[in-house]
């Protein structure tokens, strides 16, 4: 079998804390050896990493489209597909079809999440066990929170039989009804209806109580506020098995981005205040926030170029995830190792996936990136299926150089 030696790499394995200069060797689809003293064997093709970081490929726990080319360009080797597809993922048949397509093709790994309730209606528990057997790795109603407390309680109780991860969208529905922005000065001036951070906290606190009651695992899909981070921190301290994610745009922007009614900055939960943004970075740095997700959601101009209230929510996120998340690292507010853990081993552990680690014999899903390389994000350079993102022309640092899935380099920077 063909061997490849990645030499002169800065090898980082967030799970074990390894951070050393060295070589990694793949044979066929798996990692054969890695370390400071490993030498490239004769006959192996050699890839000179020139000091770039080589770490496990990123596992993106929240994407609404597979968009493989964009994922690979962003260093993502495993995409966790949300169930809000044209055919809603709420049966084992749909899960199986997605898994089979992923296994049969030479591209990113795709694992779907199933719905938590049937048809995301919030009333009847979905067939969690069967979907899990077919390869679903988590269960969520996407942007529809499970509002009924009794349903949520039973859902959590039942999920325990399968050690399934329930992912909740932290938003009180009635408080958020009709909202387009964070409730505050900007929304007031622009005349947009807002949702207060309290909507997030209320949902988090209720579900943490239910997780405590049922001794189940609960994951909050996207945290957007300081109060939300505080609520999770307090719950974890009490011993609740609660975890949460954040997306890079919440670390990078506050609600000032809505100025001029820019619908590319319309996301849900909404971008909040500067205070919230800083609290999210601090939460990721101290481990309160467990994972970083792209929330990749391509939306065409047809649904974005509308008056703010009518425009669709969502941004494309794969290609900008790493450079945006590296900004707080460069600013000295976030450890590189912590960031990489949130992109690799932590999501793998939560989803019970074998990926996200440098391990001999494990599938060689790798990303090689230059953490310092300066470049400018450009809408025209995106390979995503749409271009909805508020970061056009933004100067950033850090770029993916090569993405390897199952031993094959599927993306290489020009």
């Amino acid at each position, binding site marked *: 079998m063909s061997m490849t030696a990645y030499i002169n790499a800065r090898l980082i394995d967030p799970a074990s804390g390894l951070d050393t200069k060295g070589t990694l060797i793949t044979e066929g689809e798996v990692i054969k050896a890695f370390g400071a003293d490993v030498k490239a064997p004769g006959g192996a093709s050699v890839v000179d990493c020139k000091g770039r970081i080589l770490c496990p490929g990123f596992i993106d726990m929240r994407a609404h489209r597979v968009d493989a080319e964009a994922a690979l360009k962003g260093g993502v080797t495993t995409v966790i597909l949300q169930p809000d597809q044209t055919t809603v993922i709420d049966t084992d048949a749909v899960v199986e079809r997605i898994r089979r397509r992923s296994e049969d093709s030479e591209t990113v790994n795709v694992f779907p999440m199933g719905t938590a309730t049937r048809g995301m209606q919030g009333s009847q528990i979905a067939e969690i066990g069967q979907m899990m057997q077919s390869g679903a790795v988590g269960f969520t109603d996407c942007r529809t929170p499970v509002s009924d407390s009794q349903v949520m309680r039973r859902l959590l109780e039942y999920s325990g039989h399968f050690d399934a991860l329930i992912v909740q969208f932290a938003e009180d529905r009635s408080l958020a009804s009709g909202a387009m922005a964070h409730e505050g000065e900007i*929304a007031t*001036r622009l*005349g947009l209806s807002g949702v207060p951070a309290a909507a997030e906290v209320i949902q988090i606190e209720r579900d943490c109580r239910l997780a405590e009651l049922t001794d189940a695992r609960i994951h909050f899909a996207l945290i957007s506020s300081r109060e939300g981070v505080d609520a999770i921190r307090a719950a974890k301290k009490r011993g609740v098995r609660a975890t949460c994610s954040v997306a890079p745009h919440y670390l990078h922007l506050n609600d000032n981005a809505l100025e001029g009614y820019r619908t590319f900055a319309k996301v849900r939960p909404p971008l909040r205040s500067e205070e919230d943004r800083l609290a999210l970075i601090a939460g990721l740095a101290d481990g309160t926030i467990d994972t970083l997700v792209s929330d990749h959601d391509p939306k065409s101009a*047809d649904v974005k170029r509308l*008056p703010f*209230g*009518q425009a669709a929510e969502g941004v494309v996120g794969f290609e900008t995830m790493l450079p945006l998340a590296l900004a707080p690292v460069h600013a000295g507010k976030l450890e590189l190792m912590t960031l990489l853990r949130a992109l690799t081993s932590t999501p793998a552990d939560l989803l019970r996936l074998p990926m996200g680690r440098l391990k001999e014999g494990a599938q060689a899903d790798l990303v090689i990136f230059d953490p310092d390389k300066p470049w400018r994000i450009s809408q025209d350079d995106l390979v995503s299926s749409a271009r909805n993102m508020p970061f056009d022309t933004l100067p950033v640092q850090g770029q993916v150089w090569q993405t390897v899935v199952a031993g094959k380099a599927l993306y290489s920077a020009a």
Partner: protein
Amino acid sequence: MSTQSTGPAPYPRAEVSPPSGELFPHKHLLGIWGLDPTAIKHLLDTADGYAEQNRQAKKSTDKCEGLTQINLFFENSTRTLMSFEIAGKRLGMEVTSMSTGTSSIKKGETLLDTAATLNAMRPDVLVMRHADSGAVKLLSEKMECAVINAGDGRSEHPTQALLDALTIRRRKGRIHGQTIVISGDVAHSRVARSNIYLLNAMGARVRLVAPSTLLPKDVDRLGVEICHRMDEGLEGADVVMMLRLQQERMQGAFLPSLREYYQFWGLTHEKLKYAKDDVLVMHPGPMNRGVEISSDVADDLDRSAIEEQVEMGVAVRMACLDILTRGLRAEDGQ
């Protein structure tokens, strides 16, 4: 003489022209936010002239002869639409109006497609009202002609704020230093927002008086005082602007009942005692008598400026149409 096939576009693409000594260096009138006091004063001064002209027997001029004005209203309105129509006609423009009922937006056409269609008809001014905040700005980005915002969602209604300011200036002599109370449903009001920006820019002291369910979050950061009681709020007021209360607000649990609202926040002569003796009472209309204002206050000729507001509305809109088409007329060799 048309030079459009070879010459530059009649308007610059940028919303704000480079410094040129122009008193109103803007292509559109999308809101009061972003206008400096000089520009506001220029609009008011020009409108003042038209107010006098409108009281003459011959009210019309041919100043804007040959220009086309389209009024595009995606939300029902009678008085604002009519005011813009009269203003355009008095300047000699060709005026066409289109309301929601007859527009193709109901057939699923997007706003930007509408913009392209209208562009092709080559209007010189577009006056637009829409139920969504920011919709007029979005459309203006695609229009080649000047766009006037006649009210967008909860965002802005600049000509209303200008006519209110003109009324105050004519009755009180100045805006600077006046204590002006805005009372009612501020949360859902574009009139309140435009007035807050304008009155602040001109140096007035603005106080909002309303139950907290009708005040948007962090509104104090816009540079206003907040009061929840009418007696405290009206203390020392030179002007009281009442806002229309939408009946739907009862459904959203903003208020328990109209009766209760009237008792605590409705403007009556009794509550007006807390204001200055020569207080000016204003209302953008249409009024809900017995809800936000009592009939005897509304009809009090000494204090109520409500009819004068309507009169100034035409003058202000003439001024806006005049100023925004000036560049165009100059290019035609005037």
